[in-house]
């Protein structure tokens, strides 16, 4: 490991997070300049309209995209470690779709009875769905071997969950659908300060718990036998890992809907930047990288064709999918080279 490179990368990631954070607050349909934003953030409310836009709309949205982006890419890294598979992630494995299904059902049922669902309720519903989908993937992974088959299985689980979600949406009231439709495409719009507070607390707790798994994760990268022989309680570790990754992706889905490819693309980019896969180093960098990636994608989603806002998942997929394809191609060619050398 090259510590100079690692510190440099952290500097770069922090810089990117800071720049994108400021850009996210300054840029929008109502133009605001950096000095103006600085004054507003310091409490100058002389321009009421701009003050409201910055404090009530842009700031919570930018913070939410940073927090949720970080959680999503950490969740992806955990799943990649668990399945020893670089293209595992909450979206491709259908875990986000599982969470979407249960949240949609919970929303429709409760809204039908005139009850507004709380953040905690959303997160719980999403967690149940995420765990359900994860259980199906785990069951599947017992029978199918190999990277590609697992991902195909996950995509199929995702389709099933989406189909069931669509079924419920078809029979819902029009007013509910408008609400649900936005959310089910993935979006950071309409996030309140209360939401931001809730997700910040959840993110802090979950990421801290994840860091306590950094050491066994490193041993687990050598495979189950070696991890066990080094003293890792493999069964407990696997359970902790899968619950944490499900909780992380459930939180994201609960607040912003399913968001594609962040969980695969960001950990891969971060590892390439750091030139190491050591979890202790990669995990915080994934959180920063995910924050920067989602702030950038959200910024593009709302400004590229303003006033029309793009689907967040369309933007993340446009950036993330090529990374995944590149990943598969380089791994394949490396393997065939290795085969010849062996």
């Amino acid at each position, binding site marked *: 490991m090259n510590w100079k490179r690692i510190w440099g990368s952290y500097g770069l990631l922090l810089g990117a997070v800071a720049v994108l954070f400021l850009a996210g607050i300054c840029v929008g349909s109502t133009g605001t300049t950096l000095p103006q934003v600085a004054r507003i953030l310091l409490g100058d409310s002389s321009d009421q309209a701009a003050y409201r836009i910055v404090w009530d709309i842009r700031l919570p949205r930018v913070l939410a995209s940073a927090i949720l982006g970080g959680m999503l890419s950490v969740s992806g890294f955990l799943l990649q470690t668990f399945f020893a598979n670089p293209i595992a992630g909450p979206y491709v494995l259908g875990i986000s779709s599982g969470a979407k299904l249960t949240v949609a059902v919970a929303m429709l049922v409760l809204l039908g009875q005139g009850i507004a669902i709380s953040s905690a309720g959303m997160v719980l519903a999403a967690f149940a769905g995420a765990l359900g989908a994860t259980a199906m993937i785990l069951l599947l992974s017992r029978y199918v071997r190999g990277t590609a088959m697992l991902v195909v299985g996950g995509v199929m689980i995702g389709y099933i969950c989406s189909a069931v979600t669509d079924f419920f949406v078809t029979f819902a009231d029009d007013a509910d659908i408008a609400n649900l439709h936005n959310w089910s495409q993935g979006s950071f719009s309409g996030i309140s300060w209360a939401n931001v507070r809730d997700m910040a607390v959840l993110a802090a707790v979950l990421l801290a718990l994840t860091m306590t798994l950094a*050491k066994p994760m*490193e*041993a687990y*990268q*050598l*495979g189950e036998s070696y991890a066990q022989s*080094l003293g890792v309680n493999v069964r407990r570790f696997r359970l902790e890992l899968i619950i944490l990754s499900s909780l992380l992706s459930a939180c994201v889905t609960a607040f912003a809907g399913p968001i594609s490819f962040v969980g695969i693309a960001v950990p891969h980019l971060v590892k390439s930047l750091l030139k*190491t*896969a050591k979890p*202790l180093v990669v995990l915080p960098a994934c959180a920063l990288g995910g924050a920067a990636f989602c702030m950038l994608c959200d910024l593009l989603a709302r400004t590229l064709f303003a006033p029309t806002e793009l689907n967040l998942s369309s933007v993340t997929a446009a950036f993330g999918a090529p990374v995944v394809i590149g990943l598969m191609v380089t791994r394949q060619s490396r393997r065939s080279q290795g085969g010849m050398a062996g």
Partner: protein
Amino acid sequence: MKECLEAKNLSAGYDGKALLEQVTLSVRRGEIAVLIGPNGAGKSTLLKTLARQLAPVAGAVYLDGRAIHQLSGQEMARRLAIVTTERISPELMTCADVVRTGRYPYTGRFGLLSGADEAIAAAALASVHGEDLADRPFACISDGQRQRVLLARALCQQPEVIVLDEPTSFLDIRHKIEMLEILRRLVKEQQLAVVMSLHELDLAQRIADTVICIQEGGMGRIGTPEQVFDADYIRSLYQLEKGSYDPLFGGTELEAVKGAPRVFVIGGGGSGIPLYRKLQRQGVPFGAGILPRNDLDYPVAKALAAALVEVPPYQLAGEADLARARQLMERCEKVVCTVEAFGPCNDCCARLWALAGAKQADWRTL
């Protein structure tokens, strides 16, 4: 010296079904125990049970007198390390990184290595002559280098016992020998107890202090190589119905071609061996002679010839032997001689060769 790793009345297997029963063995520090036996007999299963990767079906395994299932994961990891056959391809890890993972049972909450840990990891890599591999990516080294790095990783745990599953499989002959020489030296230097499985009987015979034979259902012979390696026992252990095994040289020969001999080979001193094997490959039944039983050619000729004229060790052939050889030779279509020089001890061969007359042929043309 004290027993280090012991198994008493151990039954090993999967899901409560025993594949091996009543295994009792012990390994001392400074010694190498080698498991041999046919594929599928349960060598790997036994090794996994000894290393606590698998729970015993019955009985127990003891480390320094304590049952291993009573040890914590950390205590176990500080005493016993493994090298498996599993092909690992950890992402973006250098060889030094792989070796460093061996410090796991000694590091704190976040697995950060101290200066002392780094020094131990470096020393472990140096002890397998792997210093120059340190910064190479683990995914991009050869099989031989990989086994050495994995051994260094095991050493980095500073264990008393190392369990290796077929450490020489997939290696070419040079790397097999290199690997075993390193092991031999480390066992003496660091007073390690080593248990490993090997497929190569010749190597097992040379490196093992104790040989443990695993056959279907349980343990076969256990003892020093001298006690275990005899031709009949090895044949029955591997259910070798065709072909043969030579316990002294560890060589194996395929099954002899049966039938009336078509070629007679006058050999001796090792000169005939390549030809015997060539004729076997071509499916030509052949006769050979006259060989004293202490001749270098003898074990191979005995294993492969359809008919052989032999004499007792250190004896010259008599007229009767010569007559038998001549009779055999006259039934063959061709006679070849691989011997370069004749002297008093193989005078009979010189006479035989002269008697072949028109049947004489150059063995290189066969």
